Every structure is written in C-alpha cells, then in structure tokens.
C-alpha cells in the first residue's frame, strides 16, 4: 500500500510540474473563456446561458486534452527512455504502475474541473444548482474514459515525435469539430450532421444537457461507451502484438 501511495504521489508531482498541463489544461481554457465571454461579445439571445454553455465547453476541452495527451505521451516517453523496462526489474507490479497513473490522472482532472468552474463562477457570476455543478463535474470526470483509452492507444506508438504529432492533431481536431471552441451552429448543416458522430461532441453535449436542467441522453452515453470499448480493444490488440515480438 505504501508502495502504491508513493507511486501516486510521484505521478501527481510529475503531472503538476508538467508545463503542458499548466498551459493547455488550465491557462488556455481559462484564457479562451475570458476571451469569448468578456472581450469578444457574441450576439446571443441569452448571455447567461452562453456563459454556462461555454464554461462547460472549456472544462470538457481541458479534461479531454489532458486525457489524450498526458497518459499516452507519458507511456511512449517512458518506454522510449527504457523506464518501463527498468520497472520490471523492481518489485513494483505493472498493474500498480498503471493504476497509479489512472488514479493520479483522475485527481488532476478533479483539480482542473474545480479550478475552471471556480473561474466561471467568479468571472461571470454563474448561478447553477449544486446538483448541476456536481452532475456536470461527474459527467466530465467519468466520460473522460474514452479519451483516456484513446491516450492509451497513442501510448502504444514507438516514436515520441509521431505520438506527439498524432495526439496534437486528434486533440485540437476533436475540440474544434466537436463544438468545444465554438458552437456547432456556426458549421454548415451537412457538417453539423457529421459532427454528431464525434466523441468530443457527445462529451460536451452531456455537460451542456446537465447544466440546462436535462439528463444526458442514452445515445450520448452509448456512443461514448462505444468509443471507449473501441479504443480499449484496439490498444490492447496492439499491445499484445508488440509483446509477441519482444
């Protein structure tokens, strides 16, 4: 147990010291939120609703980003540096090593969510019921699973540079097309239809639904769970194949 706690502690330290986390998971979403709710006024019928909608978008953007980028990149790097290899010589079981990564990643997400929610509350005086705040936070936390699995899939790649490139394209691509940066209403109608199939759009939709007093629909959950299973199966398959070679 002490082994596991120490491992989590070390992983948390590393995550918080990572410049990427601080910049992309906190600074960028907060800056965007400030920009689109304070500086650039977007003609909206209901300004308050827009403030809430965009706060959810940015929180989803933040958590999705660190899910895709952190775990996957860490795994590729640690493998490339021989670290994963070296841990096999120690008494630390690899299951604990992965579990510690997952737990510390989740804790980081909790921190991101709290910070960004607080910013919204302070900056635009957002009033939501406790159940909406907590419901949205839980949705964002739990439904990050498909993106963590996508991170694991990227984590099976050999080269650090390729993995970083692909992860960046996926992350920003999913954020923009999923309507996290701007509402999908601005896209042409054909594109809007296609966007509905993206995990990032479904992820955001759940948070938007909760904060407008609805429940996330079954189709949202089904599609996110589907993506989770798909990414898990693919990454496990690649992992098995790689083990066979060594």
């Amino acid at each position, binding site marked *: 147990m002490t082994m596991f706690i120490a491992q989590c*502690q*070390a992983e948390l*330290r590393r995550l918080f010291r990572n410049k990427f986390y601080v910049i992309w998971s906190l600074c960028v979403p907060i800056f965007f939120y400030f920009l689109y709710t304070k500086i650039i006024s977007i003609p909206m019928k209901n300004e308050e609703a827009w403030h809430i909608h965009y706060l959810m978008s940015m929180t989803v953007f933040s958590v999705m980003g660190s899910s895709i980028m952190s775990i996957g990149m860490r795994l590729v790097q640690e493998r490339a540096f*021989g*670290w994963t290899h070296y841990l*096999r010589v*120690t*008494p630390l079981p690899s299951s604990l090593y992965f579990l510690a990564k997952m737990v510390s990643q989740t804790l980081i997400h909790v921190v991101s969510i709290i910070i960004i929610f607080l910013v919204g509350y302070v900056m635009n005086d957002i009033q939501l019921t406790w159940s909406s705040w907590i419901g949205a936070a839980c949705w964002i936390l739990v439904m990050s699973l498909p993106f963590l699995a996508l991170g694991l899939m990227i984590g099976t790649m050999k080269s650090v540079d390729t993995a970083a490139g692909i992860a960046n394209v996926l992350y920003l691509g999913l954020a923009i097309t999923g309507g996290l940066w701007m509402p999908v209403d601005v896209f042409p109608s054909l594109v809007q239809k296609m966007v509905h199939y993206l995990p990032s759009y479904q992820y955001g939709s759940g948070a938007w639904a909760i904060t407008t007093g609805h429940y996330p629909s079954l189709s949202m959950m089904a599609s996110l769970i589907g993506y989770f299973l798909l990414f898990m199966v693919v990454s496990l398959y690649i992992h098995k194949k790689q083990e066979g070679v060594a």
Partner: protein
Amino acid sequence: MDDIVTFSHVSKLYKEQQALQDLSFTLRKGETTAILGGNGAGKTTAISLMLGLMTPTSGEVTLFGHTPNARGVKERLGAMLQDVSVMDGLKVGELLQLFRSYYSAPLSFERLMTLTGLTPNDLKRRVEKLSGGQKRRVNFALALAGNPELLFFDEPTVGMDVTARRLFWQTINALQQQGKTIVFTTHYLQEADEVADRLLLFKQGTLIADGSVATIKGSLALHVISFIPGSGITCSMCAELPTVKDVQEDDGRIILKVENSDRVLQALFEKQWNVNGILVSQGSLDVAFETLTKGEAI
C-alpha cells in the same frame, strides 16, 4: 541454498538470430562474476534472461531457485541497465524515496549517499537536469535502494569519469565484503581482472571460457614469437606450425601468437627455416582476450 543464478541448457533466439546457444553455468553466493565479450556476444541477452526481461527459447534460468519473475525474487535483486534514463519530473531525492518504497527493507538515505557519492545538493535537483555522469550515479543508487543480495550491472562504467569509476569500484569492493553476489558485464578486461573472482567469456552466444581470473589467464595467455623471415618463408607456412593461433606481418617481422612456444621453436629448428632475430615474449591476457573474442583462430 548457495546457488544464486543457474542457467541450464539455455538458448535464446532473438529476432530470428541465435543470441545464446546452450548455455549452462551456476553463480554461487558471494561470487563476483564478470561477463566478458565483444559486441553481440550475448552479454546483455544473458543479463536480460537473468532479470526475467526475456524468456529463454529453450532451457531454464533460475534465481534463488525460482524463475526470475516469481514473487519475491525482485525484492532481492538490484540492477543497473544500459540505456535506461531516469524518470523525469522528479527530484533525485524524491525518486530515491519512491524506489525505497518498493522494498520492504531499503537502505537508508545516508547509506545510499555515501555508497554512490551523491551530495545533499544533488538530491534537490531535478533528474532531467543532471549530467550524464550524475545520472549514472542515480542509476547506481536506484540499484542499491532495496539493499539487494544480488546485483546486476550492465556495462556500469560507460559514461563515468575517472573519479566516478574509482568510487564505483570502491563501492563494489565494499559490497563484496558484505557478501553480496555481483554480476557485471564489461568490454574492459582490466576491470574484470581487478574486480571479479570469476570470468565468463562469451563469443557469438556461446560460453568459450569459464573460471577464475588466474586459471583463465594461465590457460589463455598466449606467447608471442617474432622473427625476420628469410626468403621463401611466408605467413601461410607459419600458420602451419604447431599451436599457432594468429599470424601477422609487421615492419618486416612475422609475429606469431602461440599457445606453446617451446613446440614452435622446436619445429622452427627442425625444419631449419631461414629465419633471424627470434624473440619470444609472454603475451598479455588482453592479447588472449582479443584473439578469442574477435578474430577466429587461423
């Protein structure tokens, strides 16, 4: 149980190449063993098999009487591997603390610092900011963190400066006194000669010599005979002489490396070859090592 590491008829095919062939040996408690060999001789493969990082294609490897991946085995060993960079984003002290948490009876911080030469200042630095030499020290400290009975070092002194090298071997010496079992690989015969009780000499995946340093020296050290050849004496003729392992021509002299200089001289006189200025000298172990591991005997 004095047998710490055993290999029985171990072969390993790696990427469709024979990395090790029918290897059998036993390392006993308290022994310091050097695994010597050129590049691609199978040193790192042998270490990887001992550590359970690879599994043998055939044959069996045991550590403390169990398979290398059995529960509790990792608790009793420490290793310093090649091409392992330290985990980034942590301070040296934090990394050591993390590693100490993996073991039930770790060494104290003070002990680790004296053994590896890390300073209190080093402990506060981020591992990614360390120089190559300091990283090796950290790797050394990680290998010792659990106070292991069995230690593995794969090419430990690569990238160490002279001071670090001296300190490293001093520490190894202290660990030997404590009765630890130590296995290390090296390119340098001198290191093996000074530190090890026993040498395992690898060549192309096979064990070509196994014994104490003195025995191997005695049996392997080749003698060198050189002379100025008269007309009609060629290198290929010399290679036909008894016990000749190597023939070279340098600066008008023919240089022979031989196992038995008496018999060669006798043959030279019997054949009444036209040779002048015969010199006989005791070859060094280095010469023997080079001949054995690099060139095929002629």
